[in-house]
């Protein structure tokens, strides 16, 4: 036994300090602020899409950016909720958003296979790598915010919380990159932008659990 239970209770009650309950709105606001900061810095450094300034909107680009934004919000809300455990809570909403965003790499692979022109020239690879690196870099602020939130909270499924935090951060990073990236090709968006999610989800799954264990 660690110590006498009555003594433990007296000790815990003696050191009690007021705490502010974790609020869903607070966590969401912090995460969105972190996402906005990343997007602002990235656009400030690299510039916003030139075609937007010219008043031209590409449908594919709008749909894909919207999908990643929706995934970022859904996964972020899930992570925020995971910090406040409750028997009976359902944390599966992010799966549907991930499945929808998963259509992009599938469509990209189909188009790339059927396309006559090469989809992986050195120039395209270089541009794709830039988007990958930019997306991962832009995801870091959201990633750090969500890990900080989970450390304050009491997530009961550490691996899943890490995975979803990685997806949320990655989707937020992709959204930020989409504000700059001038490429409207489905192969580029579906493969390179989605690759950001793979990297951050993998990192979240394996890096986050030791950081939030309690």
């Amino acid at each position, binding site marked *: *036994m*660690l*110590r006498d*239970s009555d003594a*433990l*209770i*007296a000790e*815990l*009650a*003696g050191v*009690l*300090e*007021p*705490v*502010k*309950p*974790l609020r869903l709105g607070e966590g969401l606001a912090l995460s969105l602020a972190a996402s906005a900061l990343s997007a602002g810095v990235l656009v400030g450094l690299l510039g916003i899409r030139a075609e937007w300034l010219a008043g031209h909107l590409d449908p594919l680009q709008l749909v894909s950016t919207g999908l990643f934004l929706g995934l970022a919000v859904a996964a972020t809300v899930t992570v925020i909720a995971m*910090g*406040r*455990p*409750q*028997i*009976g*809570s359902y*944390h599966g909403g992010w799966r549907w958003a991930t499945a929808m965003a998963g259509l992009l790499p599938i469509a990209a692979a189909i188009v790339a296979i059927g396309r006559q022109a090469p989809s992986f020239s050195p120039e395209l690879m270089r541009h794709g790598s830039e988007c990958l690196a930019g997306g991962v870099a832009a995801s870091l602020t959201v990633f750090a915010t969500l890990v900080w939130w989970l450390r*304050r*909270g*009491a997530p*009961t*499924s*550490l*691996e*899943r919380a890490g995975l979803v935090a990685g997806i949320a951060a990655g989707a937020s990073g992709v959204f930020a990159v989409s504000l700059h990236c001038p490429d409207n090709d489905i192969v580029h968006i579906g493969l390179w932008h989605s690759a950001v999610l793979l990297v951050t989800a993998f990192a979240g799954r394996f890096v986050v659990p030791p950081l939030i264990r*309690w």
Partner: protein
Amino acid sequence: MALSQQGDKQAYAALLEASQRWLQRYYARRISPSQLDDLVQETLIALHTKRASWDPARPFLPWLAAIARYRWVDHLRRLYRADEHELHEEFIGCDDEPELVARISLQRLLNFLPPAQEQAIALVKIDGLTIAEASAATGQSESLVKVNIHRGLKKLAALIEKE
């Protein structure tokens, strides 16, 4: 708990005492009696350190049960057979639990596991048998017992907040 979050020490002490009694009953039969007090105290400490994660707009018991399940699964993961892992006959608690408590009980969590995994965890991690003894009792090979324990604990960890 709402008063406790505001710093009311008297209300908090009463809450901890009530939680301690509830946890004693909650963990009964799901942990070796020699480990029971340690686990209850670990859970009380977790309640203390994570008290900000309770939402005052939601009921307290499902939150406490989630904390208790997490600590229980973590305890089983850390548990290695020791000499004192004899299962004693005396148990604390009773079987006539209210409906809500039954709904969030540990047995309900175990019921989500395939029978082979539940059996392996119960025999080795709760009853304190060796891998070889559990293998003989279940007819599973020793390596299969280990695999079932590993997979079962992983699944339990993922199911903690499931009803």
